[in-house]
């Protein structure tokens, strides 16, 4: 069990970015141009005084150990260094300092369809891509039928892939990758493709790979996939490891980094407010039932999301919309404004305040993030879309009148509805009921 597959010690990667764009990689002409420009500005043409070099560390001092059979997720915001880290571990790029040891054969899936060539047939591409990803020809021949079946494209196997629909292409490409069987598999964001049914198939396949004692390192923005597949998650921010531990814990702490916690957002200057020449967003607020702005909401209470919209151009049927996400960035629901007064009616110029009422005992105990959007459905047009505009936390109280009843532990789930439970008491009788009970335990 204690057998290390990947050991990273202080891995770092540095890029030099210089404001002058002179990093020694420009063409000769670019360099001469720069020199000429400096001459015009009466500076020494080859001097260094106007070079401002900046260091950029996409990965800095990253250390961790991954053992046999572990399936580890790597999360972090865009630009946190996830992909660079994977590229270092898969030897695509060199670290600037530090060291990693890898024990076993590595397979890398950083892209769907690595090595695919559009002119070649599905059959040819299975071999080509498989070999590029590190399989042996004999291995591919052995798994060929399985790959074709997984992709579900047997009829088109001898058609050039440029004639495939994008769905077919992605299925075939993923099927090849999914049949890689290295001891260590490094996967970057390739599950975010295909239809949901195929995605599920891919997830199952990945789960399978993990269960077969292989080590998997997995980057995805799909946190549901991460928490489902990985017991352990490493979170990167600015190139550093900021959390490493049990998946659920890291996902919720890491993802709330940078998430706003504010009950309102207002734009006083109309010209910079989100929107276009039809409508602009003046304000969004979380309001309790007694009209206070809040960023903490009692789980039992009904509360409102309030939009204040300035309509600048008459004649448009506008539909405000709430998009509510959990702190783990899973969408809980989307809701359109269905107010019958304005639903199909063009709005005159003026200011509108719309409230979407969210019932009590619907959301669960956690932080929530909201996007505000306003669209016209026909013709379709997005007036504004503001991401993460609000953040609020729903809290529960142990008073016994919420959905948790008298239970005091952690509860799972994105929603926590208070269901109506009914219980019938069936008085004890001889014969029939005992038999039914017995049948129940057998099955």
């Amino acid at each position, binding site marked *: 069990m204690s057998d290390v597959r990947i050991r990273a010690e202080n891995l770092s990667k540095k890029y030099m970015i210089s404001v002058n764009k002179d990093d020694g990689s420009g063409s000769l002409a670019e360099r001469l141009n720069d020199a000429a420009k400096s001459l015009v500005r009466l500076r020494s043409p080859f001097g260094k005084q106007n070079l401002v070099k900046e260091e950029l560390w996409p990965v800095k001092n990253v250390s961790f150990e991954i053992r046999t059979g572990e399936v580890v997720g790597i999360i972090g915001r865009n630009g946190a260094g996830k992909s660079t880290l994977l590229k270092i571990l898969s*030897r695509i790029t*060199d670290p*600037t300092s530090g060291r990693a*040891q890898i024990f076993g054969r590595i397979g*890398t899936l950083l892209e769907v369809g690595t090595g695919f060539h559009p002119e070649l047939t599905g059959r040819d591409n299975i071999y080509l891509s498989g070999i590029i990803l590190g399989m042996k020809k004999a291995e591919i021949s052995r798994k060929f039928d399985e790959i074709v079946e997984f992709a579900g494209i047997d009829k088109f196997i001898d058609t050039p892939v440029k004639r495939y629909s994008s769905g077919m292409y992605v299925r075939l490409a993923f099927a090849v990758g999914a049949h890689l069987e290295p001891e260590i598999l490094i996967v970057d964001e390739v599950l975010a493709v295909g239809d949901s049914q195929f995605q599920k198939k891919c997830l199952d396949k990945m789960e399978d790979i993990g269960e077969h004692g292989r080590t998997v390192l997995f980057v995805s923005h799909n946190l549901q996939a991460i928490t489902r597949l990985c017991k352990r998650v490493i979170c990167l921010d600015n190139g550093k490891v900021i959390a490493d531990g049990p998946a659920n814990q890291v996902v919720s702490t890491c993802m709330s980094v940078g998430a706003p916690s504010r009950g309102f957002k207002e734009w006083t200057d109309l010209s910079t407010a989100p929107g276009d020449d039809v409508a602009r967003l003046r304000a969004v607020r979380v309001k309790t039932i007694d009209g206070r702005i809040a960023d903490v909401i009692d789980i039992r209470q009904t509360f409102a999301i309030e939009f204040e919209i300035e309509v600048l151009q008459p004649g448009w049927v506008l539909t405000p919309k709430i998009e509510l996400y959990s702190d783990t960035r899973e969408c809980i629901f989307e809701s359109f404004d269905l107010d019958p007064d304005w639903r199909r009616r063009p709005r005159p110029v003026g200011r509108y305040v719309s409230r979407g009422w969210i019932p009590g005992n619907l959301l669960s105990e956690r932080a929530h993030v909201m996007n505000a959007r306003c669209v016209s459905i026909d013709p379709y047009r997005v007036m504004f879309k503001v991401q993460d505009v609000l953040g609020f936390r729903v809290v529960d109280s142990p008073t016994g009148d919420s959905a948790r009843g008298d239970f005091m532990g952690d509860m799972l789930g994105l929603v926590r509805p208070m269901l109506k439970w009914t219980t019938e008491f069936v008085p004890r009788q001889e014969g029939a009921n005992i038999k039914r009970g017995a049948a129940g335990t057998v099955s």
Partner: protein
Amino acid sequence: MAENMRQMNIEGPDEAVEHSSRLLHQTVIEPSKRLFYLNLRGIWECRELLFFLAWRDLKARYAQTTIGFAWAIVQPLAMMLVFTVVFSNFAKLPSDGVPYPLFVYAALLPWGYFSKSLDRSSFSIVVESNLISKVYFPRIIVPISATFVGLVDFAIAFLLLLMMMAFYGVMPSWEALFIPMFLLLIVMISLAVSLWLAALFVRFRDIGAAMPLVTQMWMFATPVVYPASLVPEQWRWLYYLNPLVGVIEGFRWALLKAPPPGLERIAVTVVFVIGLLLLGMSYFNRMERKFVDVI
């Protein structure tokens, strides 16, 4: 009972893995410091990839053409006709006693192979930038496979050469046994030059603009349209610094019984080419881990 089962299930494969891990090959990732590194083992392990990349290029290249592989013949044939008219009929260049079309065609094969390989391989890393930024394999596989692709064209064009020899009544004799040696030599020269250019081109795109000019000049510095005997005696030493001179003379000698290239010249060429190739491989391998950052 159920718990026992589960434990066994967990322990079973783990034990197996632990045993095998002692035999696992280990990869160390760190900033590379090696100055001289050929990575012959890495190339050998990727021989299937080498083959498949070449196969892909061939298949894709001719997938949409109508006459397909016949293009491999059209080009040297057309050049031969033009050169025969210009240099033999108009300029009256000598040809070592061999019919001029045959004389020039026998040189156009190795020359064409060389110049096309240079073209393909120098750009190969940049052309495959998408691939090399997504998966690791020894990058040297890419220019090597690009050099191998040309061998197919060479083989096809060679068949035409045999037909032409039959037409002109030139019969090959024991010298023809040396053809594989000269072929190996031209492959090595192409590869050596290509590796340098491919690695440099990633960084200095100027090479792309200079290439057509350089290859054209190189052709006239090589006895393709004229015999080497035309070069004045006192400049021969300089002339023979061009490794292609010996090879092309060698081809003509082995096939057409033209005057043989001096043995010591060939020896110098071989040593020079091996040196250039080893240094090229090492330089390329040293640069390869920076490619992705620079492309």
